């Protein structure tokens, strides 16, 4: 026999293999403290530390053990993690944060536990939240399925020191004045700083582009209109507003050419913070960072509502993160108690003071200590009472994808505005027809 293989050997080998498999399997189950609920949240390390601290406090108060499921910072990755576990009906995580843009999808999929019953027997009063946010985002078909942990809306940041230097009295109300000021300041400042631009905003092909587009179109009286089975995108107002976005980059040249390739929130914030812009469109989170000790523009930044066209109103897109309970959780009552804790006055105040975020509770905005430390909260409150939501549809992200693609084509000069919007409308109509029947 050239290759003597005996049965005995095979049996031993298989036995060893089995042993190895079992050992690896058992190594997987590390000893964890017994947990009651799992809370999924993502974000930067400092944010996660903050959540960890809150959880420790909650555990101490209530005796309920909470396991923090750390998610990445990236919004899409956070969504992917949740979609995967909810689709497979996993009881874990029990409670989690959701971006406002996916709330409708999650609610329509039946993944979220309705909250009305829990609210009745709770001290938490839904009146304390921004009512518009509650009605436009947290209710799906009239049923409350989530609550706002923090809200966001697009605002205009400007450089107070440059305003003084160029004798500009107050932030512009109209885009017309805005462009004039930006062109003038850019021209003069370029002499000493060649990297300087008049206006930075989020134009890369991603969800942020749609938020910006809704603000530009809204300030012209446009936007996305759903009329029965029809979706309307290709309107005169939207055409002019989209053309204006193109002009900012290619005609007035006050926004950099990489606006449509690279500019997301952080790119915009960093460039403005380094002193390379007069105006910046961003979410309120940028404020605390602009005012940080190491910020070159510390003390020189002002906040204002975004400008508008003569025939429109200043528009700010509703953003922010909401907390909800999984339909598949087996500890719903305890999860709700955790929600109550996160949404309590004290925790929401801490959220504002520690991270500079904007609480979902409107009563925190009149807190003396908060106003003292964060004076811009006064003007933000009025912005938040007037936010424009993205269409509250379960298939919103697919519509958003179409708008991203076509607006990006316009900004990069590949398509004319008219053609792009008419194509976008056709594709959006297909999506509405396909997914829109209930």
């Amino acid at each position: 026999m050239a290759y003597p293989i005996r049965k005995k050997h095979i049996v031993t080998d298989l036995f060893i293999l089995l042993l190895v498999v079992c050992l690896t399997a058992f190594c997987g189950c590390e000893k964890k403290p017994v947990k009651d609920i799992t809370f999924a949240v993502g974000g930067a390390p400092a944010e996660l530390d903050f959540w960890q601290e809150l959880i420790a406090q909650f555990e101490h108060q209530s005796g309920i053990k909470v396991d923090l499921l750390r998610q990445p910072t990236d919004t899409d990755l956070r969504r992917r993690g949740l979609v995967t576990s909810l689709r497979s009906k996993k009881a874990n995580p029990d409670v989690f944060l959701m971006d406002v843009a996916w709330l409708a999808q999650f609610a329509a999929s039946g993944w979220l536990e309705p909250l009305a019953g829990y609210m009745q027997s709770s001290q938490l009063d839904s009146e304390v939240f921004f009512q518009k946010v509650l009605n436009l985002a947290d209710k799906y078909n009239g049923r409350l399925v989530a609550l706002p942990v923090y809200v966001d809306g697009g605002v205009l940041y400007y450089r107070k020191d440059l305003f003084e230097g160029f004798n500009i009295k107050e932030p512009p109300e109209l885009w017309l004045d805005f462009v004039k000021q930006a062109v003038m300041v850019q021209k003069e400042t370029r002499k000493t700083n060649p990297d300087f631009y008049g206006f930075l905003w989020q134009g890369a092909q991603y969800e942020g582009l749609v938020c910006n587009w809704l603000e530009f179109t809204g300030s012209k009286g446009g936007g996305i209109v759903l009329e029965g089975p029809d979706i309307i995108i290709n309107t005169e107002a939207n055409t002019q507003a989209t053309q204006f976005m193109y002009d900012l980059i290619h005609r007035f040249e006050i926004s950099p050419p990489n606006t449509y390739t690279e500019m997301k929130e952080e790119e915009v914030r960093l460039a403005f913070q380094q002193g390379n812009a007069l105006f910046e469109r961003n979410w309120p989170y940028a404020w605390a960072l602009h005012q940080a000790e190491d910020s070159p523009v510390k003390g020189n930044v002002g906040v204002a509502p975004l400008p508008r066209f003569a025939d429109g109103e200043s528009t700010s897109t509703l953003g922010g993160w909401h907390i909800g309970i999984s339909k598949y959780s087996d500890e719903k009552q305890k999860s709700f108690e955790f929600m109550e804790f996160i949404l309590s006055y004290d925790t929401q105040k801490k959220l504002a003071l520690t991270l500079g975020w904007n609480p979902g509770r409107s009563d925190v905005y009149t807190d003396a200590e908060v106003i003292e430390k964060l004076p811009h909260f006064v003007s933000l409150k009025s912005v938040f009472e007037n936010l424009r939501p993205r269409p509250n549809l379960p298939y919103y992200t697919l519509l958003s994808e179409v708008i991203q693609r076509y607006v990006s084509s316009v900004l990069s000069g590949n398509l004319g505005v008219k053609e792009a919007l008419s194509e976008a409308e056709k594709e959006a109509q297909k999506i509405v027809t396909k997914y829109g029947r209930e």
Partner: protein
Amino acid sequence: MAGNRLEKNRDGTNKDIKTACIFILPLLALIFLFILVPVIGTFINSLFQDVSFLDKRFIFLKNFQQLFVDSGFRQALRFTLLFILVSVPLEIVLGTVFALLMNADVPLRGLLRACVLIPWAIPAAISARTWELIYNYSYGLANFIFTELGVTGWPVNWLGTSLGAFGAVVVADVWKTTPFVAIIVLAGLQAVPKELISQAKADGANLLQIFFKINLPLIKPVIIVTLLFRTIDGLRVFDMIYVLTGGGPGGQTTTISHYAYKYFLSGDFGYGSAASVVLFVVAFSLSVIYVKLGRFETGQI
């Protein structure tokens, strides 16, 4: 010896085949569990309206029907095919050149081989971030070189035009995967008998002749296998491009897998599965063609 064994097998027990089965069985089970089951699952899924917020129902080929009139999907398909058509040949040619260099008797050959492997060893998402820093408009290395050295005099928005973004993606991918090709081709080159080459040299053949007349025909099967690997890898490319361009501008660098991923994320698992099935069919047919090609070549040698 072999005949001897066959003789033994004839009397009923068939020991060797039995042993072979025992050895192959775990592998077959794994393939079934981790490859066949998901593939069949995806096939079945693609025939359903499987949207998380709508009722699930059987719609047969309607997902595919919609895919082929979906301009976004067609753009993704076109881009993906164009991408492999340009990047794979570049990788094969460059990789072969590197392999020849590494095979030559040069000083510090070990170091050279180690260096060449580095790009392949770096995870795609990380090398994509690195390339992002190179292409960046305001502080990227490419623009620094171009403006400071006065090549153009003004910064270029590399990822801003369809051609620019396409080129950028191809360059990054070629940089990353050429080492893979080089290593496999090197293994092929080392199997070429040295006597053949010294004989050819003695006969007065020059280097080009040696390569085209001796090396190339002998390493052809290896090259075809590499081609197969690279084509399939290129078809399902995701991380590198997703991180580098995010599919922009205007969706012009969106790959099929990125497109399918978007639908999975939005809760339409049926449509996403259908896109994946198309990807599978394309990859599978190309593989069959390559394998046929490979057999034909080995038969000739």
